[in-house]
């Protein structure tokens, strides 16, 4: 940035230097010192930049790359993948593919990388692990077919799946280093044996439903926090400072409490043997056998998330309301507006930036939220993040986890763009 500044300034300097050489040298010196100061200031931010680049940007890029780039099969079975490139999913692949895969399985067995290949194929093809290990064992005894026989017959005699088109199709698709298969899986689709994109069977469809659930639940939480937070923010902003500060501390207090403690407190309150249920039973409002299930389901998630998100709604609202002069309402009243009309026409429009900021902040935080739904959501109150966690920790299908995160990221960016188009980028005030 500094270079453009210098370039734009230099012609002016030359002009002036004709007029007064002393003046220009002074300016040069001044310029040099400012530049030095600017560099020094920039140097102070270097550790942070390096930190962000190293521990945030790079892993993020790496993770996102995994969602569409996966060269592992292409690297372990290069020849086979090359032969399969010319095969267009019609019938079984040519003999050359069988010969190549035989050779490469033996090589991989030799260098010890067959096991990890087997695990990886097993993600997409049930039984691929046994297939590869048994094939390797079979090939150790008869590494090449008898005279007059083919590699195809040899492999198919070791394991029948070598004679199935499905298996080869999947192998070909996994051999593509650049692939959309993880994104297809994220939307409950897949490639079939002919390389066409088809929907997954009903019982495997879950991601789209979870995306939908995450979106509507997040929207509901936004509405709830707005309904609860607006009056609180108004009250804090319009109380005398002493009371206002106290109220603000009450809003912030949960902020300073560990997330797990807050979440556990909700479990204590809402579970079937919990405080609220005990109270309802004691009051005779609910029968002991019919205690309400408010925890470990969507109700639990909504309640706990609304509580946790409340400060993120109250603070932007408060900071905007604080800046609205009280005389506006008085002026409206003196001009004859009834309180409700004055509120709608005069006050509410002025809080728009705060509402916009609070809503977008809460919504974005909700979409990617993991820990609270995981703790109180049971099975039906989970967000899409639970499947990101599942694929990272349990199924070890990082490609799919990355694709799911990618979809979340794009959704957030799209919503943000839409929002700033509707409300104008600078109308959002985060306090």
């Amino acid at each position, binding site marked *: 940035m500094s270079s453009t500044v210098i370039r734009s300034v230099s012609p002016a300097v030359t002009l002036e230097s004709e007029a007064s050489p002393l003046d220009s040298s002074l300016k040069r010196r001044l310029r040099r010192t400012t530049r030095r100061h600017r560099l020094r200031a920039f140097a102070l931010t270097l550790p942070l930049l390096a930190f962000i680049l190293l521990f945030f940007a790079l892993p993020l890029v790496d993770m996102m790359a995994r969602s569409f780039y996966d060269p592992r099969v292409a690297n372990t079975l290069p020849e086979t993948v090359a032969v399969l490139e010319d095969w267009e999913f019609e019938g079984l692949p040519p003999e050359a593919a069988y010969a190549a895969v035989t050779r490469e399985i033996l090589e991989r067995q030799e260098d010890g990388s067959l096991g990890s290949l087997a695990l990886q194929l097993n993600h997409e093809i*049930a039984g691929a692990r*046994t297939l590869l290990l048994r094939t390797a064992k079979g090939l150790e005894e008869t590494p090449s077919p008898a005279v007059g026989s083919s590699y195809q017959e040899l492999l198919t005699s070791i394991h029948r799946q070598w004679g199935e088109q499905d298996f080869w199709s999947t192998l070909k698709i996994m051999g593509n280093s650049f692939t959309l298969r993880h994104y297809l899986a994220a939307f409950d689709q897949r490639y079939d044996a002919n390389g066409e994109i088809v929907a997954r069977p009903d*019982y*495997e469809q879950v991601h789209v439903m979870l995306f939908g659930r995450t979106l509507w639940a997040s929207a509901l939480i936004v509405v709830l926090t707005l309904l609860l937070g607006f009056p609180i923010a108004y009250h804090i902003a319009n109380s005398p400072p002493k009371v206002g500060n106290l109220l603000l501390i009450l809003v912030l207090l949960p902020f300073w409490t560990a997330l797990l403690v807050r979440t556990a407190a909700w479990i204590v309150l809402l579970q*079937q043997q919990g405080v609220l249920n005990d109270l309802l039973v004691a009051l005779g409002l609910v029968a002991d056998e019919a205690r309400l299930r408010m925890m470990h389901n969507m109700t639990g998630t909504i309640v706990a998330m609304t509580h946790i998100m409340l400060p993120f709604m109250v603070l932007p609202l408060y900071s905007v309301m604080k800046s609205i002069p009280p005389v506006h309402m008085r002026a409206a009243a003196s001009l004859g507006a009834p309180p409700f009309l004055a509120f709608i026409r005069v006050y509410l429009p002025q809080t728009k930036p705060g509402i916009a900021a609070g809503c977008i902040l809460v919504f974005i935080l909700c979409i990617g939220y993991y820990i609270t739904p995981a703790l109180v959501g049971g099975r039906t109150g989970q967000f899409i993040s639970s499947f990101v966690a599942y694929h990272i920790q349990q199924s070890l299908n990082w490609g799919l986890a990355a694709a799911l995160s990618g979809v979340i990221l794009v959704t957030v960016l799209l919503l943000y763009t839409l929002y700033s188009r509707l409300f104008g980028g600078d109308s959002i005030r985060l306090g």
Partner: protein
Amino acid sequence: MPITRHRTTRAVALAAGATTLFAVAATASAQSITVVSGGGAYSQSQIEAYHKPFAAETGATVNSADYNFDLGPIRAQVEAGNVHWDVADVEEHQAIRGCAEGLFEKIDISDMPAAADGTPAEEDFIEGTFSECAIGTILFSTIYAYDERQFSDGQERPTTLADFFDVEKFPGRRGLQSKGQGTLEFALMADGVPPEEVYDVLSTEEGMNRAFSMLERVKDDAVWWDTGAQSVQILADGEVAMTISWNGRIQTAIDEEQLPAKIVWDNQMWMLNMWSIPKGGANVDLARDFIAFASRPENMAEQTKHIPYAPVRQSALELVPEEIARTLPTYPENFANALKFDASWWADYGDQTENRFTSWLAR
């Protein structure tokens, strides 16, 4: 190994002394072997039943090491040609895998001591508890247990696996493990599939659908647990009427914390831990002696006093006092229609099956 708790606390104190004992023995004898196992109460029970008497009988030193039943370190030692674990206690599927990879010495079942009545080891060991490279040591089960407090006197109690899935006959919430592994086998057996056909049925699309539609019956009443400790906790808290769990965990809670629970053994699902010898160690012969020693029926019976796992030999079970024997998976009444858990089936079909299970759970 699902449980790490102790049956008798006395063993802990004894074990502390044992370490010093071994140190003294080390100076007296040149021979020593290292036995690696899962640690905690489980290793303690082995030290009491096997390590100490073996040291006393042979004069050799037995060192105990802990690991988390992962083949990695064994593979590293064998490949580097620097084997310092002479005997390894491994889970069955790891034994099969390690054997295929050539990590273990071959062990012949006929080298194991015969039973007191002369029955050769091959017939005395329960079917499926020994293989080419490994000899079974203990056996434990996944079972279900119910909360006795939730049943009044004279009320009918659940006795079969099908009862667990019958929420109309036995109302109340059910605890199940939140993964397909094990849960699907139980669902099929409850639906009437005999244990020996479970994995064949599960390998078909219809069989899988059948298992899931069985689970659908308890879904609304299910509490899903992730760890063994949780399974005991929800039962103790009265949150569920019955729960799937592991026999060792439940039995320990019954013995030590007076948990009013009862184990139902019908269609239990068992798995086992095995002794193996990492290839290329310096003390292979002594390691073989140790395994033969640990396979003596009387020593196996001794271990059950310290931990509620079952010996894998018929003759060992006969030596166990009746009141303990009843609480073990291999007690004839308990063992009648047991299913042997098939880890290699899960290695092949686990990815797809667990994905489907997780998707099903989230709906």
